[in-house]
C-alpha cells in the first residue's frame, strides 16, 4: 500500500517537473539584411501554444508562413525521465526599404496564459550587388593556377580589421582592441592558417577570454552585410605618449571554392576545393596624450577605482604582526598600480608590502581588485595611530586626478612577553640626515669689540708691561719678604737667649727692694720677672699672656706638671700679697729663693 502511494507521488513529481519548466517564447532573425533579400523570422517555444500574434511587420513583406514544426525529445538518465519539446513557427520576410527597424515582441497563448517574446532590431541595408558574379570572376582567375590553390579575394569580399574602442586616450588608459574577420555572408570559410595577430608594441596587454569556437555574426560595415568573426580581444594600455601605430597583421584564410568542371569525366565531388587567401590589415594609429603633471603620491593608476581598508587587529601585544589590508577595486590598469606608502612611526618594524591582484579582462575592460597587505610589528607598548594612506589615481573620463584616503586606525599595543630589548637592537635602523640645501651660516649677532686695524694685544706695550711688572713685583716681594723673615727669626732667637738674663735682672731689682723692705715693689718685680721670662721663652706678646695661655705654652713645651704647680703657687702668692700686704722680711727672702729656683729649673726644662 505504502509502495503504491510512493509510486503515485513519484509520478506526480515528474508531472510537476514537466509543468515546472519555464515557458519561453523566443523570436530570432538575422540582425542585418539587405533590402529585397528574403530572411527568416522564427518563433521558438518549448510548450505547445496557440494563437500566435505577430508583431507589427509593416516594414517587411511577409512572403510565407507560418510554417510550423515541432520536435520532442525524451531522455531517461538513470531512471529519471525528462522531456523537452520545441515548437517553431517560421515566417519568410523580405525587407522593403533600408533602415533600422525594431520588431516589437510577439505573443502566444499557452494554457490560457499569454507569453511575450523578446524584441528584435534588424538593420536593413541597400541591396547588395550580385555577389555571385564577382565570385565567378574570381574563380575564373583561379582556374588558371588552380594547382597552387591560392585565392585572391577582393577587399570588399573579405578583410580583417583591428577595431579599437578608443583612438584618443591618455597614457595608461585602457583600450579594447578587437581583431575581426569580415567576410561576405555567402563565402564559405574552411579555416585559418598562419594567424599572425597584432603585436601591440608600446602597450601593456591583457587578453580577454573569448570562446574557442569562432561565432560568426552578421554585421553591417560600410553599408554592406558581412559575416563577422571575432578572432581575438585584448585590453591594451599605452605606455608611451604620442602617436603609436599598431603594425599591420596578416592571416591566411582557407576558402572553399567551387571549381567548374573541365570535362564531363572530372570527378563529380572534386567540384569543391579549398583555396588560401592571405589577408592583411591596415595599420591603426592611436594618439596618446600624456597625463597632466601628477600630484604627490600618484600611484600610476589610470581608470576608475575605489579604496577600502581593513586592520587585522586593534589590540595586539608587542612584536605581534599586524596587517593593514588595502583593497583597490575598479577598472583600469590595476596590475600597474604601485603600492601607496604607509608612513609609520619609527616604533614599528615595517616589512615590504605584499601585493596580490585578482583581475579579469572582459569586454568592459580590465577590472578586478588589488590587495596590498602592509605587515608591521609594534616594538613598544602604547597607543599608536596608524596614519591614513592616500591613493591617487587618474580618471581619464574626467581627465583629472582623484584621490581617496583610508581611515586612521588606532592600535593599542600591550606589553608582550618576548625579549624586547634584543629584538629592538636587532632592528634599529639608522638613517642619514637628508641634506636638502646648502647655504652659508647666518651672521654673528654677538656684541662685538671693535679694535683698530692691525692692533694686536700680543706685542703691545701692555702685554710686555704685564710680564715686566709681574717679574719686578715678584722680585721685590721676594727680597722684602725674605729679609723680614730673617729679621723675625733673629728677634725670637735673641729674646729666647736673653730671657734668663732679663729674668735675673728683674730678680736683682727685686733683691734691692727686698733689702729696702719695700714689699709691694718687691712682689711687683718678681711678677715682672716671671711674665717677661715666659713671654720671651714662649714667644707670646706680654699683652696676650695670661694664666691660661701660660699654662698651655708650658705644657706644649713639656714642662713637668710639678714645676707648673710651683710656678702657679708663686704667681698666686705674689698677687695675693700685692693686694693684702703682710709678712715680713723672712717671707720675702723665701719667695725670692723660690722664684730663683723655679726660673732656673724652667730654663733647663724648656726646650727650644
Amino acid at each position, binding site marked *: 500500500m505504502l509502495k503504491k502511494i510512493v509510486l503515485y507521488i513519484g509520478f506526480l513529481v515528474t508531472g510537476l517537473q514537466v509543468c515546472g519548466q519555464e515557458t519561453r517564447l523566443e523570436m530570432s532573425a538575422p540582425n542585418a539584411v539587405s533590402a529585397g533579400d528574403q530572411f527568416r523570422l522564427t518563433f521558438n517555444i518549448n510548450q505547445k501554444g496557440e494563437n500566435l500574434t505577430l508583431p507589427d511587420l509593416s516594414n517587411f513583406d511577409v512572403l510565407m508562413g507560418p510554417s510550423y514544426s515541432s520536435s520532442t525529445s525524451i531522455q531517461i538518465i538513470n531512471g529519471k525521465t525528462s522531456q523537452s519539446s520545441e515548437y517553431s513557427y517560421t515566417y519568410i520576410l523580405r525587407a522593403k526599404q533600408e533602415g533600422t527597424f525594431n520588431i516589437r515582441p510577439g505573443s502566444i497563448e499557452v494554457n490560457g496564459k499569454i507569453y511575450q517574446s523578446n524584441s528584435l532590431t534588424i538593420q536593413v541595408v541597400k541591396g547588395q550587388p550580385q555577389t555571385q558574379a564577382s565570385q565567378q570572376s574570381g574563380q575564373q582567375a583561379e582556374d588558371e593556377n588552380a594547382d597552387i590553390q591560392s585565392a585572391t579575394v577582393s577587399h570588399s569580399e573579405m578583410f580583417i580589421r583591428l577595431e579599437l574602442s578608443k583612438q584618443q586616450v591618455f597614457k595608461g588608459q585602457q583600450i579594447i582592441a578587437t581583431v575581426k574577420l569580415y567576410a561576405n555572408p555567402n563565402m564559405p570559410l574552411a579555416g585559418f592558417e598562419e594567424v599572425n595577430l597584432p603585436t601591440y608594441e608600446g602597450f601593456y596587454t591583457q587578453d580577454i577570454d573569448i570562446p574557442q569556437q569562432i561565432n560568426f555574426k552578421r554585421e553591417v560595415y560600410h553599408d554592406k552585410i558581412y559575416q563577422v568573426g571575432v578572432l581575438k580581444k585584448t585590453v591594451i594600455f599605452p605606455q608611451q605618449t604620442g602617436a603609436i601605430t599598431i603594425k599591420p597583421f596578416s592571416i591566411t584564410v582557407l576558402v572553399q571554392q567551387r571549381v567548374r568542371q573541365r570535362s564531363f569525366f572530372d570527378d563529380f565531388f572534386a567540384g569543391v576545393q579549398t583555396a588560401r587567401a592571405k589577408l592583411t590589415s591596415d595599420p591603426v594609429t592611436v594618439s596618446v596624450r600624456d597625463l597632466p603633471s601628477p600630484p604627490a603620491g600618484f600611484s600610476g593608476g589610470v581608470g576608475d577605482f575605489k579604496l577600502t581598508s581593513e586592520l587585522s587587529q586593534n589590540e595586539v601585544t608587542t612584536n605581534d604582526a599586524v596587517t593593514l589590508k588595502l583593497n583597490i577595486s575598479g577598472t583600469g590598469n590595476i596590475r600597474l598600480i604601485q603600492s601607496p606608502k604607509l608612513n609609520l612611526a619609527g616604533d614599528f618594524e615595517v616589512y615590504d608590502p605584499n601585493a596580490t591582484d585578482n583581475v579579469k579582462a572582459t569586454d568592459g575592460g580590465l577590472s578586478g581588485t588589488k590587495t596590498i597587505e602592509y605587515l608591521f610589528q609594534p616594538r613598544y607598548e602604547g597607543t599608536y595611530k596608524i596614519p591614513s594612506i592616500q591613493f591617487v589615481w587618474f580618471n581619464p573620463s574626467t581627465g583629472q586626478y582623484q584621490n581617496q584616503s583610508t581611515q586612521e586606525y588606532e592600535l593599542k599595543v600591550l606589553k608582550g612577553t618576548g625579549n624586547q630589548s634584543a629584538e629592538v637592537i636587532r632592528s634599529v635602523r639608522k638613517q642619514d640626515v637628508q641634506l636638502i640645501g646648502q647655504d652659508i651660516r647666518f651672521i654673528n649677532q654677538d656684541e662685538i669689540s671693535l679694535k683698530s686695524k692691525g692692533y694686536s694685544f700680543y706685542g703691545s706695550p701692555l702685554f710686555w708691561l*704685564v710680564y715686566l711688572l709681574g717679574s719686578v713685583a715678584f722680585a721685590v716681594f721676594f727680597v722684602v719678604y725674605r729679609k723680614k723673615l730673617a729679621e723675625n727669626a733673629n728677634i725670637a732667637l735673641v729674646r729666647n737667649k736673653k730671657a734668663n738674663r732679663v729674668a735675673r735682672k728683674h730678680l736683682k731689682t727685686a733683691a734691692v727692694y727686698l733689702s729696702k723692705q719695700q714689699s709691694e715693689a718687691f712682689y711687683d718685680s718678681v711678677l715682672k720677672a716671671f711674665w717677661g721670662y715666659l713671654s720671651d721663652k714662649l714667644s707670646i706678646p706680654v699683652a696676650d699672656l695670661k694664666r691660661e695661655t701660660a699654662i698651655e705654652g708650658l705644657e706644649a713645651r713639656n714642662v713637668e706638671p710639678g714645676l707648673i704647680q710651683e710656678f702657679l703657687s708663686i704667681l698666686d702668692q705674689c698677687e695675693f700679697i700685692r693686694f693684702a700686704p703682710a709678712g715680713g722680711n723672712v717671707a720675702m727672702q723665701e719667695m725670692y729663693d723660690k722664684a730663683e729656683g723655679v726660673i732656673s729649673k724652667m730654663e733647663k726644662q724648656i726646650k727650644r
Partner: protein
Amino acid sequence: MKRYIFLVLILFSRNLQAADLKAVMEQANKAYTSQDFSKARELYEQILGAGKESAILYFNLGNACFKQNDHIKAILYYERAKRLAPQNEDIDFNLKIANQFVVDNIEQLPRPFFSRWWGNLADHSSADGWAKSSMLFFILFLVLLGSYFFSRSLRIRKLAFYASVFAGAVVVISFLLAARQYNCIKDRSSALIQCPRVTVKSAPSSTGTDLFLIHEGLKVKITDQLEKWREIELADGNKGWVTDSCLVRI
C-alpha cells in the same frame, strides 16, 4: 627716509665714536636680517672705513657679499675673519661653501705631522687669546713660585713646585703659539686672485712662457716681487709670476 638720514650722518661724521660704530653694526645686522644685503654691506664697509676691524665684522660682511653673489669678496672677507679668529667654526664652514665657487681645484701639499699638530693646536685660539692665557699663567706661575719659596708646610711646597713647573710650561707654549698666530696675522703674503682668468708666467715679464691658467678666488702665497710682478706659489707647490693688479692681499 630714516635710512637716508642715517647714511648722510655716516658720510659726514668721519670720526665716529665706538658707541656709534656699535649702533651702525646693529643697524647693519638688522638690514641683513631683513634681507637688505646691499645696505648691510654698505654699513659694514663704513665700519671698516673707520679703521676698525673684528672677526665678526669680517664674517658678517663676507656673508653680505656672498648673498649678493660676490663670492670672491666673500672669500676675501672670510679669510680675513679667519686670520683674526682661527678658532671660529662658522667662518670655516662659510669659507668652505664660498670656496665651492672657485673654479680651480688644487690639491694641498701634505705637511709634516708636527707642523700640522702645531698648527691645529694654534688654531684653537687667536693670537690675543694665546697672549692672554700666557699672561694669566705667568701670574699664576709667580704666585705658585712664591708659595713654593715661602710656605712652611712641606706638602704645600711640593705641590706648588710641580704646579709652578706646569704653569711655566703653559706660559712658554702659549707664548710661542701667540707668537705664531701673531706672525700669521702680520704675514701679508697670502693673497686671492681677483681677475677672472690669469695666465701665470714663468718670468716677471709679459713675454714669459705661459705656465698655467688659474681663476678668480684662488688663494695663493706671494713669495717674491719685482716691480709690478709678484711671484706666487699655489697650495700644490707650483710657482709662477703674475701682475700685482690681479692679486688682492688678505
